[in-house]
């Protein structure tokens, strides 16, 4: 197995998500370098999709901005490959099934490996359909990240048993970017069900994350994925987003320790 699990070895992992190419690939490149230096343990790089059905408004708009700016899968891989030596943390890509499938699943995973990307997250590919991706992932030593949701119930253990890398846990219903009312109990319960069958790290993905939620996540889970808050900061500040993004990450990181 690859190094993605190492990201969970030094305390609780902070996993910010950004949409590649929003507002430009040059800014994304800077964000990768700076976030890696300032607390990110894994960065989830979003490959924009025209129709992101599991995202709220913030990421939908970021995807459209990135596509309008001419971002393509090839340009993203090229940028990541170039900047990889300056980025110490682990990298994952997050996108939808269609961009992966149309690019060619084997070619996509080979490119990930070539660019030092050790995991892929594909929200519209559930357990039942992961065979579409898993052999190419295995061949290229890329972890295929599984997700669990509050509605997963009896499915949680089935998914956790086969999961690779880490488990992406969504403790509240809804698309990304919707303010959640997740309680400590929700998280404890979800993580507990995973723990009974697997020691895989659990990362909690919130809608909109603040310091209080970071503390909650850090209590029982192994990490926290920042779904749309970083994307919102980038949307608001555009080219000048680096500093506010870093300040936000530092605040979350300190709350998690």
């Amino acid at each position, binding site marked *: 197995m690859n190094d993605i699990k190492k990201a969970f070895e030094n305390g609780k992992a902070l996993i910010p998500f950004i949409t590649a190419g929003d507002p430009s690939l040059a800014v994304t490149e800077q964000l990768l370098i700076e976030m890696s230096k300032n607390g990110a343990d894994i960065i989830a790089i979003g490959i924009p999709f*025209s129709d992101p*059905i599991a995202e709220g408004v913030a990421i939908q708009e970021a995807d459209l901005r990135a*596509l309008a700016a001419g971002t*393509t899968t090839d340009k993203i891989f090229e940028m990541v490959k170039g900047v990889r030596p300056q980025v110490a943390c682990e990298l994952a890509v997050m996108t939808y099934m269609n961009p992966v499938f149309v690019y060619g699943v084997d070619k996509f995973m080979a490119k990930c490996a070539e660019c030092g990307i050790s995991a892929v997250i594909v929200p519209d590919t559930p357990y*039942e359909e992961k065979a579409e991706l898993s052999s190419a992932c295995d061949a290229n030593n890329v972890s295929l990240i599984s997700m669990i*949701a509050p509605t*997963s119930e009896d499915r949680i253990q089935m998914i956790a048993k086969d999961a690779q890398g880490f488990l992406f846990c969504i403790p509240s*219903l809804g698309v990304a970017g919707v303010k959640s009312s997740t309680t400590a109990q929700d998280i404890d319960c979800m993580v507990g069900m995973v723990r009974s069958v697997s020691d895989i790290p659990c990362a909690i993905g919130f809608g909109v994350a603040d310091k209080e939620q970071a503390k909650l996540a850090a209590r029982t889970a192994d990490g926290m994925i920042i779904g749309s808050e970083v994307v919102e900061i980038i949307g608001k500040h555009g080219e000048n987003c680096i500093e506010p993004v870093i300040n936000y990450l530092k605040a979350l990181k300190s709350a998690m320790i």
Partner: protein
Amino acid sequence: MSKGRFGIHGGQFVPETLMNAINEFEEAYSRYKDDPEFVAELDTLLREYAGRPSRLYYAAKMTEDLGGAKIYLKREDLNHTGSHKLNNCLGQCLLAKKMGKTRVIAETGAGQHGVATATVAALLGMECEIFMGKEDTIRQALNVYRMKLLGAKVNAVETGTMTLKDAVNEAMREWTNRVADTHYVLGSVMGPHPFPTVVRDFQSVIGKEIKSQLMEKEGRLPDVVMACVGGGSNAMGAFYEFIPNESVQLIGCEAAGLGADTPKNAATMANGTLGIFHGMKSYFCQDEYGQIAPVYSISAGLDYPGIGPEHANLADTGRATYVPVTDEEAVQAFEYLSRTEGIIPAIESAHAVAHCIKLAPTMSKDSIIVVNLSGRGDKDVAAIARYRGEDLYE
């Protein structure tokens, strides 16, 4: 593992949050589909409320005028609410009710599926919310008000191209947000399994009726069954019964907008490539990176960049063929059928009529074409007037 495949197409490509909901729906469907009580209840509604069976009408004037094959029109436009959509809504809403759901949501393009869902929700006492692209709420304003009259909330979707594709995106997001008390009444033979199968089964009453009605009138099978195709529910409903009868040619008519070779079209079979979107593997209009194309058709109901997985497989195996029909051809057919037979078809259905106008004269007088007239055209009158340069607003 993977379920609901038609050849290589289909599957269940949805977020984990929805998996238990679609599994639960699949279980409920297998439990009730052959349950005598459920079947009797649905049959009664189809007969007493929807007005089935719909007529199979011999279009004598059209046949004579075109001078070739005998033309029969399957009059789904005479269904209550004015289209075939009600067949599926009655089935799915009844199932949802059995599953204890109190609320239904749906996407709609032309508004026919939204109206049908709102109608059944009113009938069964369920809460109803419809998602419709903002562009479509403008070109189908009459249907928006119909849905409101029926007690539904209509959400105008302002993302993307603001048409059917975006309405499906938003309905899926809403289902993800609120799944416990809500069933998503998908309106076409698309989306994740079991929807393509369930919707096809509920619509297959169309083909079954065509077969028995034509047997009664002509004592034989038709040579051609044709229907318009967006997602493909009315076509699948008309085709399904005839799939084993290989002498029956099945033709789907898709929306070519300004022309299948122009940038403004929705001709998925002509221009689409294999992809995975909206829960299914099928053909989609998209670019080399898998970004879904902004498609176009004068018909809001056919203005969709994909096609149901069973159609994709029928095309792969050669069992059905799919032909592009332009806006102009559809509008001419809309006007032709109105003048010739006194029947104003939905602009969607007019795509099938247009191909019939081309095909019938090339066939012998003892051959038979059945055109599935999936809906009536009242909703389109203002838009067609505007297309013809009249200053008419609803």
